């Protein structure tokens, strides 16, 4: 864990501390978080070795197809998924919709994803995530966006990618943007850090922390467009510490086999022999979409 997170010295048990919030993200590292829309899918995900499930009413590719306003899922549906699985359950709130987040916290979800896949509720402000006991994950396309989310209290950052496309190119762009700038900041001198903070539109202390530690202050995961085991291993080799797979599993022909293969590929991301073995015979992956053909991109939502 980064040194910046102090241990509590309160003699009484204290919930919702930065350490326990970021700590859960640490525990999810090296794992796969899978989008599920019903209890049956949640069981398949857990059976396959998912470290957590994301409960939502429609996977991103269906949201993309159906259009309209996408909102928080029905609490009954989230409760149904919580009831059948013992692994952490995450759920999405709209960007800036702090009441949806309050409801998700009251439901006892384990992580809230303030997500660009849903239709934003506020065009200037994200949720003040420091006010919550439940931890938040937020998407980012670049380092500045990641640091703004962390300054608002996010305890995990994921690449946005372009959800629901089965096309990994945007996730790669976002991961490379984030890790590349981290490497450049590590090499900067102290005077240059002020300019970095200005260019990134990010708080100076976070830029200085990255300069010292060479890493984001919270775990960095990958999301958006992952469809095959090799995509998960690519994200991990590019520096992601875990992966989210949305439409890629349950929009494929054999979700159970694909889910298991992606879990193994995430663990053995540096072992091409195992990657070759687990990639065999999975049947057709979800049909993908070219980014240029999209009417609506989700990744540009967020400020």
């Amino acid at each position, binding site marked *: *864990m980064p*040194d910046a997170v102090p*241990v*509590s*010295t*309160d*003699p*009484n*048990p*204290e*919930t*919702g*501390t930065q*350490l*326990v*919030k970021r*700590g*859960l993200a*640490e*525990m*999810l*590292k*090296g*794992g796969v978080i899978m989008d599920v829309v019903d209890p049956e899918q949640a069981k398949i995900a*857990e059976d*396959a*070795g*998912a*470290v*957590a499930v994301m409960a939502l009413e429609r996977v991103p590719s269906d949201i993309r197809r159906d259009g309209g306003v996408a909102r928080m899922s029905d609490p009954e549906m989230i409760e149904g998924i919580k009831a059948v699985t*013992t*692994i*952490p359950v995450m759920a999405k709130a709209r960007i800036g919709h702090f009441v949806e987040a309050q409801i998700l*916290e009251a439901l*006892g*979800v*384990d*992580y809230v994803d303030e997500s660009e896949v849903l239709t934003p509720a506020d065009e200037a402000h994200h949720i003040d995530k420091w006010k919550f*006991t*439940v*931890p938040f994950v937020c998407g980012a396309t670049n380092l500045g966006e990641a640091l703004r989310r962390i300054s608002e209290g996010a305890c995990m950052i994921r690449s946005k990618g372009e959800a629901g496309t089965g096309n990994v190119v945007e996730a790669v762009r976002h991961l490379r943007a984030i890790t590349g700038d981290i490497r450049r900041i590590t090499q900067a001198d102290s005077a240059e850090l002020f300019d970095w903070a200005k260019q990134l539109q990010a708080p100076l202390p976070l830029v200085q922390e990255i300069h010292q530690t060479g890493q984001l202050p919270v775990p960095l995961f990958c999301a958006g467009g992952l469809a095959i085991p090799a995509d998960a291993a690519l994200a991990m080799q590019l520096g992601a510490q875990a992966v989210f797979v949305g439409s890629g599993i349950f929009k494929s022909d054999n979700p159970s086999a694909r889910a*298991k293969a992606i*879990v*193994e590929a*995430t*663990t*053995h991301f540096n*072992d091409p022999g195992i990657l070759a073995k687990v990639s065999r015979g999975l049947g057709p992956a979800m049909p993908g979409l070219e980014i240029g053909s999209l009417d609506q991109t989700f990744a540009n939502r967020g400020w």
Partner: protein
Amino acid sequence: MKIGLLALQGAVGPHAEILASIGATTVEIRRPAELDDVDALVIPGGESTTMARLLVTSGLFDPLIERLASGMCAMGTCAGMIMLASTVLDGRPDQRSLAAIDIGVRRNAFGRQIDSFECPLEVSGLTGTFPGVFIRAPFVEEVGSGVSVGATVEDHPVLCSTEQILVTAFHPELTDDQRVHRMFLEMVEQ
């Protein structure tokens, strides 16, 4: 001394950092051959259902059982405690554990993430308190013979040990306090 860190899934990095800071060499274990030249094993926190499945698919389950049976020392934190326990309560019906210490552990016994907490612990053998970090944490419900309890929260055992095995429901690796890891290294040396 070379400590193997089970790296199938979970918070591997923090254990590596704290073990390095007290002079131990660590190596990540994902395949059976990597077990050969390690003197002891650490199983990190993470998701026990995921790790249990990957132990089987990676072919590590049986070699680990053999090494533990021949006396290799092991430390487990949170999910690692569950993996080393003889009985897992509230686990998956098909969840296998390594049964290296005779305890029954209940998964997520302290509740969900919103119930995760920090609190100072009295640990036997340590002066002053130890920072306890509990994340969707388990606790021990059944303590077998030959197992000593080194710390409790509301009377529930959260640190247990034998001469060979040390398990905690909390995460010493997420703090700067090296004392629990030092206890483990002393155990390995003896």
